């Protein structure tokens, strides 16, 4: 039950478990097979399951997502990999206009148990076209579920849940977390999509953050203790559906909300959460909600710039301190 593994490697474990459980699960994507994935996240699967179930594709993201959709319509449970989440740009139509809407437009005739895995996020110097938090591109497209795992067990459980789910789920694997260690939660109850993780409890401020930013939020929260500030840190784990209730419940205690994200303010999940919270629970707020975002620029390459671009532990600490003082 507590096998140690890293975030990168747990992916293949989850995929293998899913494939052993259900023969209708297959993988497709660029170099997911023989090479074990550009990030080695599918290593060993080709050897175990063979070329029928682990399929290397041409560089054709529209065809990859389309093939996933079509095979799902005909009874399979495909898992497609889009190597970097940024490449969702070249198959955006297939995800947003086809995958998301197919069930609705056909009044439920279509079945879409499709999982799309993508490597997400900034921090390692991949520059503007390979560093985006692309989950924000899909927030306004009804019909998609969005998972943003931050830890090894969450990644395992969310990937399993995504594959079992009868709806399309986009799973964003943060590539700056690949080295993160944790244990495989085997034998644990399946996770329901839409249930937040209350990572840490405190009565002074509610921090909500995902993926890389969740870890920074926790780090900042740990430091804030020295200043006498106790923070709750909530990791929603999925953005659609979103566990608004977990945030509301925490706000009952803290009356202060801070969201940390690695994207710009506009069109973001954080802004959306804040807007919902103030609309639905205005009376809970004793201070203005704080959204920590990146500056309004694409991701820069140079180390010094990218470091500055992402919200840091220090930014979070300062933001929380000010919020509590308000």
């Amino acid at each position: 039950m507590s096998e140690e593994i890293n975030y990168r490697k747990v992916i293949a474990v989850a995929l293998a478990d899913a494939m052993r459980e259900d023969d209708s699960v297959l993988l497709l994507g660029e170099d997911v097979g023989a090479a074990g994935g550009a990030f080695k996240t599918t290593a060993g699967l080709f050897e175990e399951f063979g070329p029928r179930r682990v399929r290397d594709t041409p560089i054709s993201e529209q065809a990859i997502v389309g093939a996933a959709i079509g095979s799902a319509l005909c009874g399979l449970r495909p898992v497609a990999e889009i190597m970097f989440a940024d490449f969702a740009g070249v198959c955006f139509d297939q995800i947003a206009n086809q995958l998301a809407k197919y069930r609705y437009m056909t009044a439920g005739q279509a079945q879409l148990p499709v999982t799309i895995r993508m490597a997400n996020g900034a921090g390692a110097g991949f520059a503007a076209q390979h560093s985006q938090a692309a989950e924000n591109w899909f927030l306004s497209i009804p019909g998609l579920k969005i998972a943003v795992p931050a830890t090894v067990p969450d990644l395992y459980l969310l990937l399993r849940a995504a594959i079992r789910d009868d709806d399309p789920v986009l799973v964003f694997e943060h590539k700056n977390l690949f080295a993160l260690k944790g244990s495989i939660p085997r034998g644990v109850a399946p996770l329901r999509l839409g249930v937040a993780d209350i990572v840490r409890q405190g009565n002074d401020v509610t921090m909500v953050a995902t993926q890389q930013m969740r870890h920074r939020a926790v780090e900042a929260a740990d430091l804030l203790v020295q200043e006498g500030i106790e923070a709750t840190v909530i990791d929603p784990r999925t953005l659609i559906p979103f566990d608004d209730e977990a945030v509301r419940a925490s706000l009952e205690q803290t009356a202060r909300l801070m969201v940390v994200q690695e994207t710009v303010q506009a069109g973001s999940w954080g802004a959306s959460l804040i807007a919902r919270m103030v609309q639905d629970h205005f009376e809970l707020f004793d201070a203005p909600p704080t959204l920590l975002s990146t500056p309004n620029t694409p991701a820069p390459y140079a180390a010094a710039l990218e470091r500055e671009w992402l919200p840091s532990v220090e930014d979070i600490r300062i933001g929380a301190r000010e919020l509590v003082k308000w």
Partner: protein
Amino acid sequence: MTIGVEASASLDQGPPDDAAALLAMMLRIRMFEDKVMDLFSQNLVRGSTHLCQGQEAVTVGVCSVLRHVDTMTCTYRGHGAVIAKGAPLAACFGELLGRAGGLCRGKGGSMHFADFSVGAIGSNAIVGAHLPITVGAALASSYLGDDRVAVSFFGDGATNIGAFHEALNLASVWKLPAVFVIENNQYGEYSPLRSTTPIDRLARRADAYGMPGVLVDGNDVAAVRSVARSAVERARAGQGPTLIEADTYRQVGHSRSDPATYRPAGELDRWLERDPILLLERSMLTRWSTEELDTIRQTAQRDVDSALEMALAMPEPTLDEMAKDVWA
């Protein structure tokens, strides 16, 4: 060169019912589409609608060699294909009218006819987007080891969009049981093919994917059926996909708002002389009497009329329908 023009196969060799069934289906589609034009003018159809009068031989010819378990995808100009695949006319009208009894309970409309029970797994309003999806349907057949074939209809203009390229390449490299059918009706919206496409025969594009490309007279239902049968057999035999270019003509404008004034003088008339229904009826006269053909026509008309009547009697969807079917 992989292109060949299939010699017109004569229906005389087949059982006599064949021709009657083909004619009946083509008439149903023609009459359906003519009714849709009426419904337009009565303002009973929302958004836009794209009709297929003149192109019936393509979808009917191809679908006549498919079973319900074989899948078919098509475009916003898909009424004919979905009817040819076997969808009930009343539910088609119902969808067009946005009624609860429509194929998609009124949520899809004219551009999104689908009837999974007969293998019509989707009409797509994004040009070319259904081609990758067709590849997925074919992938499922190959994966499951069954003998279903995945067929896709799309226009000449669609051969210039990226999804076409990616889909054909992947279907070929995986040798999937797919058949890609270009309904070359000479125009993409208002643009004649030559203004957007630097080659004259689209079937030649098959070469780029190492698959056979076949050109066929798309107004000759027997010829279409013959090339479709070969392609379907090839697909079932695990020999991979085929690209079929069916040369035909869109007798009406692109969509409801298009009077098609861009057509050169005489072009429509020339194609009307080769109207697919006319051609089929003429060829049938060797074995069928005019009266028999009239009966087929009358039956089709009666079916279409009563289907429309049924559809007009269908209730609108109730408001709770809106929130349904986003999730499983």
